């Protein structure tokens, strides 16, 4: 549960680092959900037509944001989508992850009609990406209830820190621990841009609407959340599962494994989580199970000697 100022807590931030997403059930009021569906219905043909040779006029009642502009510039009133994005709860979540008034990258209306058999292959949206720990977020907003098997997005928790090409993961038809979204109307998932996911068939009688927006940070993503609990949870490099482990710490939370993370390969994901948390917390002394510190200390000894 976010803090009173609507920003995320340290525990929620740690969960984001582990899972690659956070889920907020029914966070958008029902009255607003229906208005956003109406706006998405008007917006969708405009979005689709942009792939064609003729650029259409703007959707009635909703100006389209321009890529690279502040989020606050887009979807002014009376836009229902804009109203959803300006909810204090949504703004608090986004501020915690990508800072205040992040940059609008792009958005899209994802509609799966009733009876659709279309299945997307697993993929990553970050086709061209950096190797540093900075990240964008993608907000997935489901304005209607999505029941099991009714077109909810398939996604694989914990995959967001792996370096892959967009469609290179399409061969994984099933992965242990993967999920398919179900949830009440007004539920929002906020995901790291690297999370593996795929659209699913909707054999039901219900339409499945989803609005997705990608946002870039405009400030370093350091301590942007409500850090009132950070001092109590932040651990140093002595946090090691085979030595000493505090009763509750960021390190303890980052060690949580997903079902597909079996064997010793998961330690490479754990190293990536530690690097991301060093960035988020601005603390180069942070570590989990000593993986980074051990190598850095030995490396410093070799540097003392000079070239070898």
């Amino acid at each position, binding site marked *: 549960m976010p803090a009173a100022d609507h920003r995320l807590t340290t525990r929620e931030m740690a969960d984001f680092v582990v899972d690659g997403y956070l889920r907020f059930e029914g966070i958008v009021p029902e009255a607003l959900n229906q208005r956003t569906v109406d706006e998405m219905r008007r917006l969708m043909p405009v979005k689709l037509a942009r792939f064609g040779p003729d650029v259409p006029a703007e959707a009635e009642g909703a100006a389209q944001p321009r890529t690279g502009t502040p989020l606050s510039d887009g979807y002014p009133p009376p836009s229902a989508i804009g109203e959803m994005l300006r909810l204090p709860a949504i703004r608090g979540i986004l501020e915690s992850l990508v800072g205040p008034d992040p940059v609008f990258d792009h958005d899209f209306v994802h509609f799966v009609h009733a009876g659709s058999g279309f299945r997307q292959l697993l993929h990553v949206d970050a086709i061209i990406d950096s190797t540093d720990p900075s990240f964008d977020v993608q907000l997935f907003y489901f304005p209607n209830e999505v029941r099991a098997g009714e077109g909810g997005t398939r996604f694989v928790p914990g995959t967001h820190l*792996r370096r892959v090409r967009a469609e290179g993961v399409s061969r*994984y*038809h099933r992965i242990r621990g993967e999920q398919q979204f179900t949830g009440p109307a007004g539920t929002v998932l906020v995901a790291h841009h690297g999370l593996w996911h795929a659209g699913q068939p909707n054999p039901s009688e219900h339409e499945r609407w989803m609005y997705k927006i990608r946002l870039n940070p405009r400030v370093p993503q350091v301590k942007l959340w409500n850090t009132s609990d950070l001092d109590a949870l932040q651990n140093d490099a002595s946090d090691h599962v085979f030595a000493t482990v505090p009763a509750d710490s960021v390190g303890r939370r980052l060690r949580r494994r997903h079902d597909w993370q079996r064997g010793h*390969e998961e330690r*490479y994901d754990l190293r990536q989580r530690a690097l991301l948390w060093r960035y988020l917390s601005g603390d180069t002394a942070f570590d989990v199970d000593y993986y980074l510190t051990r190598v850095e200390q030995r490396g410093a000894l070799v540097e003392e000697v000079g070239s070898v």
Partner: protein
Amino acid sequence: MTVRQQVLYLWLSESALDSEVIAWAFHDGTQGRQGGIPDGDPPYKTGLAALEEGWLLLQSPQITPPPPGREFDPGYLPYEFVFERHWELPAA
């Protein structure tokens, strides 16, 4: 009679064939006219379990050194084993 192939990808937790299955994909050249795979999550506990159920191993993963500087970056699931089996079907 005509021969059709089914292909089973199993991604295992480690480089050994008898390590745990963590991901899978099944491709059926018989278009459902012959048996598929068990319904479990995963369908087989290990790669060895698939052999024991009659799958033939086509390919084991190559264990190649990662590029310098990328030795510890996780990426694709590294331990990909490919299996097949053939079925003889009446000609269409």
